[in-house]
């Protein structure tokens, strides 16, 4: 028992109260999900640090909590979005979509009253005049400015005879325009029960809502009288003829996004070719960087060669430069008209290839750049692995009169292949999702010309997903999330194979 233990329980009790107060505040603000999440995490944290039985978890909690909140939760949330029609046209919940529609209104031109603003000290008085010039209405002094624009205010107007107007001259149109934002928030209640809002730079008018709410949750269009019911299948308000109104709302659509990916010809066409290119891109990148990196590692391990450390340092440099910088540099170097690479090609061969406009050349460029970025890593890995090979094997092969190529294929490769495989699989998984390279170098372009959703010939799955989710032509979060889920399962499979291989290696060594 140390001296602080007497203070422990009061402090815990105080923290529990503080947590409950916070959670209740969030719940009262109408966010039950956030409240539950806060309660779970706060409660767990308190339990872990207050209980005597959770010693190990005191060390683990921050790391595990970080993973859960910023890796696992986004993952689950993404999976859940994959089963909905969440997109730019179906952004809101059904309640908020209904509220949005009920807010829509149209101004009635015939009932408009012209208004003028008159300064009275720091405040302004608003005066309404009917078209016939008869008795008007006047507001109390208003502190019009950015402050009043926040709390949209109901203003009670008083009737005032035509001859008893305010003394000050009306503000000029330009000054009125300065107050436009504040004026747009005002709602004026006239003594006869009419309610007016801003209807133009000179007028306030009555406004008619476009929609009427019915008790069963449907909406009636005022102009036509037809009734639109919320359709929980499609996520839109629909009338009996099946006409939809925008905006729709977010509903669960089951496996629709996945079946679209596999069976809808518009989506499947680019999806299949992008998938193939993703695998080809990741596979060839790993193949090229391994071939180059391994060769270099072997050559730089040759004792007869001088300046090996210098070569190794210089060849390692691409790895030391941040990717976002070197990719930008390559973007400049490959430029068709001003790039250094085309300048050299033009001088030597007299050609100027269009690296960014031709799909095949763009793919070649991506592979060149990615090999440049990737081989130092493999080189360093292989150098370490080759150092571990016993030298007597090479002595024996020298006695047998073997040539360097025989040494490489019969001794070096078989001995480093096994420990290298898990690392190559993770390199494959990394390049499978190499979003930064694609989005910074080509951004997926050149695009396919005949697709509904934007899709590029150099897009890999991740950048394609990003496009579907975030570019203006698509913003289909649901479909993007479904593809993301698919990517996750592929990557998870690769990683599990990886862990298995690593385990087999360890057992072999033991």
């Amino acid at each position, binding site marked *: 028992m140390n001296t602080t233990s007497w203070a422990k329980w009061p402090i815990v009790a105080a923290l529990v109260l503080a947590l409950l107060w916070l959670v209740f505040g969030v719940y009262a603000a109408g*966010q039950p999900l956030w409240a539950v999440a806060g309660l779970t995490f706060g409660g767990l944290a308190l339990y872990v640090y207050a209980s005597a039985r959770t010693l190990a978890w005191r060390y*683990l909690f921050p790391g595990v909590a970080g993973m859960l909140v*910023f890796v696992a939760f986004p993952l689950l949330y993404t999976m859940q979005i994959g089963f909905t029609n969440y997109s730019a046209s179906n952004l809101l919940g059904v309640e908020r979509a209904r509220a949005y529609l009920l807010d829509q209104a149209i101004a009635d031109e015939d009932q408009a009253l012209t208004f003028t603003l008159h300064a009275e000290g720091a405040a302004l008085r608003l005066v309404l005049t009917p078209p016939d010039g008869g008795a008007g209405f006047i507001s109390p002094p208003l502190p019009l400015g950015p402050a009043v624009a926040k709390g949209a205010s109901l203003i009670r107007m008083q009737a005032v005879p035509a001859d008893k107007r305010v003394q000050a001259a009306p503000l000029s149109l330009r000054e009125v325009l300065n107050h436009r934002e504040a004026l747009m928030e005002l709602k004026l209640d006239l003594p006869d029960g009419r309610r007016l809002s801003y209807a133009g730079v000179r007028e306030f008018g009555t406004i008619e809502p476009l929609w009427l709410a019915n008790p069963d949750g449907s909406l009636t269009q005022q102009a036509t009288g037809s009734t639109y019911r919320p359709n929980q299948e499609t996520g839109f308000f629909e009338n009996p003829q099946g006409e939809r109104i925008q905006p729709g709302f977010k509903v669960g659509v089951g496996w629709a996004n996945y079946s679209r990916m596999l069976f809808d010809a518009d989506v499947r066409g680019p999806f299949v070719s992008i998938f193939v290119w993703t695998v080809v891109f990741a596979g060839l990148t790993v193949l090229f960087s391994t071939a180059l990196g391994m060769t270099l590692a072997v050559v730089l391990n040759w004792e007869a060669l001088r300046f090996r450390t210098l070569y190794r340092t210089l060849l390692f440099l691409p790895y030391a430069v941040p990717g976002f910088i070197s990719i930008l540099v390559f973007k400049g170097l490959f430029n068709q008209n001003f790039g*250094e690479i085309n300048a050299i090609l033009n001088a030597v061969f007299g050609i100027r290839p269009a690296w960014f406009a031709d799909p095949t050349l763009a793919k070649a460029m991506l592979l060149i750049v990615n090999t440049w970025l990737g081989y130092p890593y493999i080189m360093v890995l292989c150098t370490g692995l080759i150092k571990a090979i016993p030298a007597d094997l*090479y002595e024996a092969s020298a006695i047998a009169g073997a040539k360097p190529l025989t040494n490489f294929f019969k001794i070096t490769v078989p001995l480093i292949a096994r420990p290298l495989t898990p690392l190559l699989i993770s390199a494959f998984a990394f390049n499978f999702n190499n979003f930064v390279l694609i989005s910074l170098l080509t951004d997926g372009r050149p695009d396919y010309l005949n697709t509904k959703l934007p899709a590029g010939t150099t897009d890999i799955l991740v950048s394609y997903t990003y496009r579907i989710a975030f570019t203006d032509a698509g913003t289909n979060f649901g479909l993007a999330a479904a593809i993301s889920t698919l990517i996750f399962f592929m990557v998870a499979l690769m*990683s599990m194979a990886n862990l298995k291989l690593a385990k087999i290696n360890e057992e072999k060594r033991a």
Partner: protein
Amino acid sequence: MAIVTGKSQRWRIVATHAGLCLLVAVTLFPLLAVISISLRPGNFSTGSLIPSEISLEHWKLALGFSYSAADGTLVTPPFPVLLWLWNSIKIASVSALLIVAISTTAAYAFARMKFAHKNTILNSMLLLQMFPVAVALVAIFAIFEGLGSYIPWLGIETHAGLIIAYLGGVAMHIWTIKGYFETIPTEIEECAKVDGATHWQAFQYVLLPMSVPILMVVFVLAFIGTIIEYPVASVLLREEPNLTLAVGLQVLPV
């Protein structure tokens, strides 16, 4: 290794040197080209690799100074590059420190303590880390928008929010530190405990000072990892004065 070498050895060495020199030239060409272009006057990327005329005008703009052009007009820096660099360094240092703190304690638990499902938790953390962050951007954006409505200094457009977002990526670092801890004999800490040290004291005064090298390595890895991170930063930061260098540089016209 003393091995009798054949006559062809010398030619092979010369050929290898030639090949390596060519490769080094190809590797370094893009890097040298950048330096060369940055020193050339005007906005021309073509020209000889060694500039005939050296001008520091681009460097002045990048470092936030104005310079007067040949025709007498004053050119002011178009982008706050130094501010972006400072943002990047600030965010990367703070998050790397926090990542080291979090992953060291977690690695200690994984390396030294016994608790249920230890391997399952570690393996699932490694698997989760494989999930590409670029595809979870919608969810991450939604989380920080929600968070920001209650705690404004953790929301979108805040550096604190971005730092918090980076704290999820600790699995690989935990794995690295755990491997190092396992090479240190447990007996040393047990001695400390026999002498009356608590769990935390054995960790703080015995194990930590012995693992400074790996903590430095993890700090550097985490620092580099955050300073070059692009997708999350590009979604959470959008205002020009807030950007990190990785996001800001992509705004520059190339």
